[in-house]
């Protein structure tokens, strides 16, 4: 069975890579409203994704069984593929155009000749319909349905102990970060030390947000983990010293900014930006 699985994976990957869009511009459009009904919370399960797995299993199933010369199952998968493909085409009216039922039927007919070459050739036409839609819609769908929204997450401001919006909190943390740096630059080490205290507690508060989207603690090794902890210790050491060493101070500022703020923005903010545009409408 290992072969079959490996084959299926290769098949899926190959087929997703062979059929990209050719234009250099990528347009991200908000997915049609009618897709909502196939994703939580409107449906109990992500039905659209499940439908995709069916298509891909039957598509792959045809080739696996051709290889194994299990022709009975080749025919079964070919028929099922057409059936599910038709069903999929009716799910989201706005996307009807992406489907080519004739191409699906032509592929099924070719598969039923039990000739690998013919089937391979006929798969191109059908595969293209899958590829075109993926290229144009998949990222939008991931962003809308698989990315939770930072705009709905509240963070407890550790100083006032009130909940604030995530983006407001970001502005606040950015202010505390700046306040520490400016005070240090001016040689006001006492003030800088107090600003560090506020900044650090706000930064640690960010750790409480991870579990609102992630279910393992492993992710906390990044952005808010050991590297950040060490940088904060380094900052505290300088600010509590009789004569702080500016070189060490700025090195640690850079570490927080790079391995903390920047890297987290690179992984999380892109999606948040796209969602924001859609949510504003």
């Amino acid at each position, binding site marked *: 069975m290992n072969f079959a699985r490996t084959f299926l994976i290769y098949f899926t990957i190959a087929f997703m890579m062979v059929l990209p869009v050719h234009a250099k511009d990528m347009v991200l459009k908000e997915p049609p409203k009618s897709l909502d009904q196939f994703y939580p919370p409107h449906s109990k399960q992500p039905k659209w994704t499940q439908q995709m797995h069916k298509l891909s299993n039957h598509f792959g199933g045809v080739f696996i069984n051709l290889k194994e010369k299990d022709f009975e199952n080749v025919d079964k998968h070919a028929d099922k593929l057409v059936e599910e493909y038709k069903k999929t085409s009716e799910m989201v009216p706005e996307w009807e155009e992406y489907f080519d039922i004739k191409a699906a039927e032509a592929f099924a007919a070719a598969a039923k000749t039990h000739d690998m070459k013919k089937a391979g050739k006929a798969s191109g036409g059908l595969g293209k319909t899958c590829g075109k839609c993926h290229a144009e819609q998949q990222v939008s769908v991931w962003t809308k349905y698989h990315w939770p929204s930072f705009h709905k997450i509240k963070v407890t401001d550790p100083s006032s*102990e009130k*909940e604030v919006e995530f983006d407001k909190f970001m502005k606040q943390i950015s202010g505390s970060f700046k306040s520490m740096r400016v005070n240090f630059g001016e040689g006001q080490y006492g003030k800088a030390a107090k600003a560090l205290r506020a900044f650090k507690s706000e930064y640690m*508060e960010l750790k*409480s947000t991870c*579990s609102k*989207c992630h*279910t393992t603690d492993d992710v906390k090794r990044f952005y808010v983990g050991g590297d950040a902890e060490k940088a904060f210790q380094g900052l505290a050491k300088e600010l509590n010293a009789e004569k702080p060493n500016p070189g060490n101070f700025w090195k640690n500022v850079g570490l927080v900014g790079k391995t903390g703020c920047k890297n987290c923005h690179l992984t999380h903010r892109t999606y948040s930006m796209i969602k924001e545009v859609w949510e504003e409408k």
Partner: protein
Amino acid sequence: MNLSARMRNLLAAIAYFAVAGIAIAYFLINEKFEWIPESALELVREKDLLERPEAKRCADCHTAIYDSWKKSRHSISWTSKTYIEASENRSKEKCLACHIPESVKGEKPSPRMDRRDEGIYCVSCHFIDGKMNGPYDLVAPPHPTYRNPEYVRSNFCGSCHQKTFKEWQATKEEDTCQDCHMPRTRARLTQKMGLNLLHKKKWVGDHRFLHGEISEKDILMETSFQENFFNISLLNKTVPHGVPTADNGDPRLYLYIIFYNSEGEEVDRTKEILAPQQETALPFNKKVDFRYRLFDPVSRVNIELKYQPAWSKEKELVWEKTVQP
């Protein structure tokens, strides 16, 4: 013999047989249930109990346990306001497994499709392979049962309380989750008239899944002044997991430290947030040190410890102390 005497005898005989019948039934059910033939049990089985009924159905007999469960956080794991908020109106798929489990078997469960408002209910925790699994070897006429030793082990709770379980395991303490959170009392498992008398009292675990209390005895504090610094150390002496502990919830302890000068004026204040999500919870039996720089002369420090559960925005005082240099 006149009629009434005969009547009396007959009644006496019936009463005798009834008592003997109950006694035999009592004996069979409690002592020798393996003698009861499966075919006899088939006659009294209530088939719908094996079709994953709602918790209220179990309450027909297990009334007391139901009432307790109803008070537990488990019964509102899906309807809890704070959960709905955190899961973005329950759309985050990663969150379903432990909040609406199909069946608990010592590993992360799969989410179920039906009766979601029941949260973590009787069937989720007890119904495995067509039988009510539980801690006892017994006979329950209405439904098949199976003695499963997992029910008195922490591993069972660890199916979902995964992080807490790991913390507990690392302490090597013997008390299980159930020992502290489901303390046992001697009682009947069922309250249905008739049935309850046929079954002996047994140990029943508290299905309110008690939250646990903390006080001065549990969280110990030491302090010291040292030149320009004030040191505090806290020790979780009694609870064999982090205090607080959580999986995806965000319970917290707040430690408030206020510094006063000799005039009694506040000169500085600071706080610590002790929270599992921030990896700052107090580990079992291991001191945690905090160090504060004193910017001004200080003649008194006031320290307060407050607790806020995962499902609430309110804090309650655990203890308050004042120390002087």
